[in-house]
């Protein structure tokens, strides 16, 4: 742009110049541009933020107080916390929580994808069925769904898988329709699928219409278009929402206690009634385990999001490890520069 500016007024017969002639460049500017270090007295002084420092100090004091309180308040009984934290009873509960979460997450997502595909299909019947399903399971509280399933035997004496209205192939007996784990997984998956369906649908809708057109113009088969073109791009929008959903799911598994499945929370609850004096440390045990689970999911989320940002960002964000290395490198360079400055 700037190369053209001087030529505009130079043209003969061009009475009012199209642009005012550029002002003469200040001399110090050009020396800086030449590549030499900027003299210290010409560097821009950054704005100071005194209130930011005051606020930081206030927050630090409050945080220190909270930590001090947590550590010294006898009410928390940290010795009992240590006693319970890795007890087999608690760990058994943790395994149940993990199992129910993992199965429900998988079935919920698969169900959600099917429901979303139905909702986005051209068939009005599929669209309606999908809509009604989502409406129903988003309206009914999870605890109600679980208790319904738990009392399923009372509603349907036997259940068979087979030809609709025809002969069945697999029969479930009257006495034990399903274990508590199955009831819990089915109930949570049914609920989860409704939410996952909306997450997946939003993701698919976020993909640009031009992508569908490009796939159509190239004659790509429909299955290929969905699995290789649309869905990978949709995942970029799906992953953050679904992880959010997943974290909610981890915590909602604590409801399976009501269908007599002893998950982490169930164990804590029963142990708490056996050892009433330890109820607070037991709750802390559950809290810390839920914190750990959520943290693991969050870390996984970072790497999954990073993977699916290929192509969407010009450069993928650095991992925390890469950022740490870069910070150390920068600090070292700055330190070296400072010592060199001092030496001079």
């Amino acid at each position: 742009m700037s190369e053209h500016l001087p030529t505009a007024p130079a043209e003969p017969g061009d009475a009012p110049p199209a642009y005012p002639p550029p002002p003469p460049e200040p001399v110090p500017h050009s020396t800086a541009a030449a590549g030499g270090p900027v003299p210290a007295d010409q560097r821009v002084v950054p704005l100071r933020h005194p209130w930011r420092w005051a606020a930081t100090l206030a927050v630090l004091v409050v945080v220190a107080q909270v930590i001090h309180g947590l550590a010294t308040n006898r009410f928390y009984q940290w010795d009992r916390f240590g006693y319970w934290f890795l007890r087999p009873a608690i760990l058994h509960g943790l395994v149940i929580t993990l199992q129910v979460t993992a199965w429900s997450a998988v079935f919920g997502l698969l169900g959600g994808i099917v429901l979303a595909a139905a909702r986005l299909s051209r068939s009005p019947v599929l669209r309606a069925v999908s809509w009604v399903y989502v409406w129903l399971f988003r309206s009914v509280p999870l605890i109600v769904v679980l208790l319904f399933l738990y009392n399923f035997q009372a509603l349907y004496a036997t259940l068979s898988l087979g030809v609709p209205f025809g002969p069945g192939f697999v029969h479930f007996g009257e006495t034990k329709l399903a274990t508590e784990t199955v009831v819990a997984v089915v109930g949570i998956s049914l609920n989860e699928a409704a939410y996952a369906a909306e997450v997946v649908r939003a993701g698919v809708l976020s993909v640009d219409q031009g992508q569908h057109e490009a796939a159509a113009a190239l004659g790509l088969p429909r299955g290929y278009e969905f699995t290789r073109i649309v869905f990978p791009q949709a995942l970029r929008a799906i992953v953050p929402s679904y992880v959010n959903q997943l974290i909610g799911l981890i915590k909602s598994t604590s409801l399976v206690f009501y269908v007599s499945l002893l998950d982490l929370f169930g164990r804590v609850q029963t142990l708490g009634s056996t050892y009433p004096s330890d109820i607070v440390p037991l709750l802390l045990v559950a809290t810390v385990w839920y914190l750990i689970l959520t943290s693991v999911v969050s870390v996984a989320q970072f790497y999954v999001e990073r993977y699916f940002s290929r192509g969407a960002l010009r450069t993928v964000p650095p991992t925390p490890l890469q950022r740490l290395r870069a910070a150390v490198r920068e600090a070292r360079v700055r330190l070296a520069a400072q010592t060199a400055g001092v030496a001079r």
Partner: protein
Amino acid sequence: MNAVDKAGTAGASAAVGASAAPTAGAAGATEPVRPAAVSVHRAYKRFGERQVLAGIDLEVPAGQVLAVLGPSGSGKSTLLRVINHLEQLDAGHVEVGGEPVGVRRHRGRFKELGPRQIRAQRSRIGFVFQDFNLFPHLTALDNVAAAPVATRRAGRAQARERARELLGRVGLADRAEAYPRQLSGGQQQRVAIARALALDPGVILFDEPTSALDPELVGEVLAVIRDLATSGTTLIVVTHEIGFARDVADAVVFLDGGRIVEQGPPDQVLTAPRHPRTREFLSRVL
């Protein structure tokens, strides 16, 4: 049409493009594709209240380059999109290589084809979009190799090898592993052209291929299209680049209000337009 003459004009007027597409001469290295003739018969298309195509008849002989000009809203893009059945006609039909597109004759009427057959037909018609529509999560190479693999025309290794060759042909051999967003607009459009070429189409349709580009990037894309013109593929180019139409096209069509107002060789339509509407348009664009 004579390829020598065209190559000469291309070289003279596209100094930018010549350097951007260094392997322009390598077009002959690949096996020759049989160009397909395109004809449009009594095409009508309406969007709601608006008659977008109002009875278009058009013949593009195999191997010819047709430039489609016209003001915005004149039906240029729709005309292009009905040729590969991205839009369905209300009446009339399109033939590519002598075969009706998207429909089949049945007892004197046209019946719509199933999606599978339409896809097979589309894969023989290249389409280049105004805003590229590359797949952002795939590298340039995978963008080009996707369609031959998906349509089972070639194995993965073979498709990638051919994709590399095509990227070389549009002057991007060194950017094969880049993602679209790491490329300039001109480079993206050249990848999109390579992607369209990957299925060896008999005809390629360009929908304002340079309208989304910065002015200094237009030349490199036009150079690639010029190169294609000399290789004998049938090209239909909707464009606002009058100079390009004059240099490269064998024929020019001027559209207004969903009708063909004027058509003929570029010299005649562009320098001595007979219809007042064409004259008015050209005076505003030139």
